[in-house]
C-alpha cells in the first residue's frame, strides 16, 4: 500500500515540476527533505519522551486500570453482545483507555486481544458482529487526552503555543467519534437483523 502511494507521490512531483519548470527546486527538495525529516524527529523527541514518561507513571500507578473500570459500563452499552463477557470487556476497555492516555504501543496489542476474544463467540467467523464493528470504529477515531505527536510537531515548527489546539482536538474528536458510532448503529440496523449472529 505505502509502496504505491510513495511511487505516485514521487512520479507526480516529477511530472508537476516538469510542467511548472521547477526541476531545480525539486532536486533540492529531495536532498533537503531527508535532512528535514531527521531534524523533525530530533526536535520532536524531547516532548514525545516527556509524555511517554509521564504516562508510564500513570500506568504504573494503576490509572489505566481505574479508568478502564469506569469506561467498561459505557462500552458495554455499545457492545451488547459482550456486555456480560468480562474477559472481552476487560480487553476492550483496556484498549480504549490506553488510546485515551496515548499509550499507543500498549493499545494495539490490547485491541488485538479484544478482537480475538470477541471472535470466539462471533457466530459467523468471516464477518464481524455489530459489537466488533463498533469496537473497530472506536479505534479508527482518535480518542486521545493529549495529542502528543501533533503538539510535538507544532513545537518543532516553532509554535508559540503548541498545546493551544488541544481543546479543539477534544471537541472535534468527540463529535466525530459520536458521528461514527451513530452511523455504525444506523447502518447495522438497516439490514434488519444482526446478520452475523442470526
Amino acid at each position: 500500500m505505502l509502496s504505491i502511494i510513495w511511487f505516485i507521490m514521487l512520479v507526480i512531483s516529477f511530472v508537476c515540476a516538469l510542467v511548472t519548470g521547477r526541476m531545480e527546486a525539486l532536486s533540492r527538495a529531495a536532498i533537503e527533505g531527508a535532512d528535514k525529516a531527521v531534524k523533525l524527529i530530533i526536535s520532536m523527541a524531547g516532548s514525545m519522551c516527556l509524555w511517554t514518561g509521564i504516562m508510564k507513571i500513570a500506568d504504573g500507578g494503576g490509572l489505566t486500570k481505574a479508568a478502564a473500570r469506569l469506561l467498561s459500563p459505557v462500552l458495554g452499552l455499545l457492545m451488547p453482545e459482550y456486555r456480560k463477557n468480562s474477559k472481552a470487556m476487560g480487553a476492550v476497555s483496556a484498549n480504549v483507555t490506553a488510546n485515551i492516555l496515548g499509550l499507543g504501543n500498549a493499545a494495539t496489542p490490547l485491541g488485538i486481544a479484544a478482537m480475538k476474544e470477541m471472535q470466539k463467540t462471533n457466530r459467523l467467523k468471516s464477518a464481524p458482529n455489530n459489537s466488533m464493528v463498533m469496537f473497530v470504529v472506536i479505534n479508527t477515531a482518535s480518542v486521545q487526552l493529549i495529542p502528543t505527536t501533533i503538539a510535538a510537531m507544532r513545537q518543532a515548527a516553532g509554535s508559540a503555543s503548541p498545546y493551544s489546539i488541544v481543546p479543539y482536538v477534544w471537541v472535534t474528536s468527540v463529535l466525530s467519534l459520536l458521528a461514527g458510532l451513530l452511523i455504525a448503529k444506523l447502518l447495522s440496523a438497516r439490514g434488519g437483523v444482526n446478520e452475523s449472529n442470526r
Partner: protein
Amino acid sequence: MNQIGEYIVPVVIVFVVVFGACRKVDLFDSFTKGAKEGIESLVSVAPSLIGLVIAVSMLEASGFFDIVSQILAPVCSFVAIPPEVVPLGLMRPVTGSGSFAILNNILEKYGADSMIGRTASVMAGSTETTFYAIAVYYGSCGVKKTRHTVPAALTADLLGMLFAAWSVKLF
C-alpha cells in the same frame, strides 16, 4: 479555549506525579522507562517518516499542493475549510507517517499558529489512520468482511475534517 490549552500540560503532569506518588510508584524509574519507549517508537517510525517527508517535500517543490489548492478552492470555500488542508485529509486515513509529513509541510509553509496551521493540527490530532486500524484488527482475528465499518469510519473522518475547520474558525 486557548487558555485551557495553557493549563493542560502542567495540570496533567502534576496530577500524574501526585497520583503516582500516592500509589507509591517509583516515579523517576517509571518516567525514564517510558521516555525510553518514546525514543524507541520514534526510532521505529524514523525510516518511513524520512521516506515520506522526502516525497512530500518534492511534491511541495513541484508546485503540486498549490495546484490542488487552487482547483479545490471553490468547493472548499463552500464548506468553509481551507483548501490547503485537503491533501492532509486525504492522506490521514491511509498512512500515519504520510499525514505527519504533510502536516509538517503545512506547519512550515504557513506557520503553526496560522489559521491553516491550526486547522491542520486539529484535523491530524482528532482523526486516526483508519485503514491501518481496520486492517490490523480484522486481520488479527481472521475476519474477512468488514460490513459497515469502512463507511462509518470514513464518514466520521470526513466529519472530523469539517468539525476541525469549523471549530478553529468559530472559537
